[in-house]
């Protein structure tokens, strides 16, 4: 079972996405701001991070850069969740070191596709084929 860290400050988005991912078989841990997200990610307890970009404390781009600069989390798969496709968030996210991005509101199947692709590339187990 893949373990996902969802970094999202908006409570409803957090609740909604975590519940939907859990229903699909993922184990979801939550962080409410960029600082907490980085700290939790560094515990190395996760296979993939879903990172909102506009976060309090430190924003998603800064958090990503911090994780990328740490050898331990250098290759941790990170998917940026941006508010709006056209605002340049995508490019900025990729520049900061995210592996992929998706836009909110989440289209679940598309996001799952991206997550599975990254998890498989990282050699870890996805929600479906994970575990033993």
């Amino acid at each position, binding site marked *: 079972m893949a373990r996902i860290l969802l970094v999202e400050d*908006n409570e*409803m*988005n957090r609740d*909604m*996405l975590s*519940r*939907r991912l859990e*229903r699909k078989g993922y184990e979801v841990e939550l962080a409410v701001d960029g600082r907490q997200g980085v700290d939790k990610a560094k515990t190395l307890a996760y296979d993939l991070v879903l990172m909102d970009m506009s976060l309090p404390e430190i924003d998603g781009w800064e958090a990503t850069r911090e994780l990328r600069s740490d050898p331990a989390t250098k290759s941790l798969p990170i998917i940026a969740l941006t*508010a*709006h*496709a*056209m*605002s*340049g968030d*995508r*490019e900025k996210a990729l520049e900061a070191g995210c592996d992929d991005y998706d836009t*909110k*509101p*989440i289209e*679940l199947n598309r996001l799952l596709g991206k997550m599975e692709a990254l998890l498989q590339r990282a050699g870890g187990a996805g929600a479906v084929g994970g575990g033993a």
Partner: protein
Amino acid sequence: MTPRSTSRRSAQAHRQAALLRLTTGIVSAHTEDDIYHAMVDGLHDEALGYSFLGAFILEAATGDRVLRASAGWPDVPENWRVHKGEGISERAVEDGTLHYTPDVTRESRYVASRVRGSEVDIPLRIDGETIGVLVVESDDRDAFNDQDFEILSAAADQSAIAIARVRLLEAERRRADEHKALLDTLADLSSELELSRVLQAVIDRAVTQLGVTGGEVAIYDEEMEELVVVASRSVGKDSTGTRLKLDEGAMGAVARTLEPLIIPSYHEWMGRSEKYSDVTVHSVMAAPLLIGRRLVGVIATVHSDPKRVFIEEDLRLLNMFAPQAAIAIENARLYTAAQRQRQYFESLVQNNPVAIVSLGLGHEIVSCNPAFERLFGYSSEEVVGRQLDDLISTADTRSEAEAYTREALDHAVHVIGRRRRKDGAFVDVEILGVPVVVDGEQLGLMGLYHDITELLEARREAEAANSAKSQFLANMSHELRTPLNAIIGYSEMLQEEVEDLGQTELVPDLGKIRTAGRHLLALINDVLDLSKIEAGKMELFLEEFEVQVMVDEVATTVRPLIDKNSNHLEVHCPPDVGEMRGDLTKVRQMLLNLLSNASKFTSAGRINLEVARERNGGDESLVFRVRDTGIGMTPEQQQRVFEAFSQAEASTARKFGGTGLGLAISKRFCEMMGGGIELESEPGKGSTFTIRLPTTAIAAAEPQT
């Protein structure tokens, strides 16, 4: 030879000599007085007994004889007057013949004088009329004989002829002078008041010279088609101001036919005007006043004496005055028209809200209007004669302003600039400099200054307001999106959960919430994009990307929409199309927009996406062409289709969905990347949108940020 005969012969020689002197004197005479002096001086000869001589001229008004020249009378008063009926010489005047008085002292009419001898009086006659008398006196009684009478008669005849000639010449000269004076008046005619004065002079002279009772001149009023009498003389009343219709009266008839007219008996004439029923007019003669064939007035003369009737010869004389009057009227008209036009333009300049200054060839100010005085704070008196650029340009703008001034002497210059007022304050102005050329002659230039300080201020404010609006929209969109995410997300999640629970009856309603939410989101995103573009905050993220990969991705994304309306999608993308440099997200968004539009407005048809690399000179571009077989657009719809919120019709938006912003955004994206979008369409046949983008978009193509 007897002494007597010697004396007689000698006397004859003296007489011949006297006549010769007189003739010589007369020949060189210029005036009448020259002739009188030549007469008396020439004949004066003591040896002949021609001791006291006087040339008297008959004064027409009194019948008195007035002495004009004398010889041998040193103390005779100048202009000595002998009253009618008095003096011995009266007889010669009375019957027009030579009279000899051998002993003046025995005459009853003798006026006591120094002369006590004999006297000869010879009349001076022109055309059978006596105009004066030559008086020759001797101290001796009976001093004159037949030979003297013969010589003196010849002298008087010669003198009279000479006087007639000089009088004729003088009359001619006076007439010429009068004519010249009249022409001079015509030349500098400068008002309507003066026109009536000149026309009055014309009619006065015509009446005098034609020897008629009276006359009138009328001007033709083209607008009213009426004649107005402006000069009148002795027609029985002051007729000035009288208006006559065409065909009314003699002048009206002439105005209609443009032919001269003689009416022998006016009061029996059918065409007579009631306006002249109260005056005694017997016969009338009228002639048109023409400039070319254009009527400018009518001149008429009248006889009130029933015995006198006009004849063709009178018409010829009248026609001598017509051109003078016609030219006077025409000149006055031209002058008035020119004056009016001048006043019109003058008031145009004076009342113009635009500051206007006119400069001479040396850039010195010739004049300025009140708006110029107001704009720059200088009075007209302060600026006239000074260099414009000394007054209103600053050290910064000086050379630029002088260059414009030089340029404007040659051709129109239109610029925006900043100038200085008298109080030192700056003023933003739109400047127009134009050369002033009259009849090919360069007179200088004219500068027009339109104060645009407020305009620029208003523009700055509008830009600030617009920017604030865009910022507001951007913030608003962001704030709207957060709760919207929750609505969409929860409705999707619920949909999944109820499906899992098998409660399928709730699925369609949840689907509607989700669809509405997505539409609202699309609207918000488009508005955000547009406001960013308009605020100049939309950025380009240029990267190299594989065109085919992007096209395949777009085709996959749009597939469900294509299928929904039973359309068929064909994609033609050559395998070697390669890479391009551009904003991938925006190119993708544009293609998605065109394809989803095509599928929206086409049902059970073909939609074709064609990608090609085109070379035009040194520029390479990628062409994306989306063709459909849908409903198409009228030319009017095509014109508005790239405007924001302008789906061809309001009803279209309801029927087909969409935000109506997609094409407006696509067009701006294309322009940002240095490309463009084109449309060909025909109602009922379908539409073709063509996007053309340079293969290497450059950041410089961005709008202002």
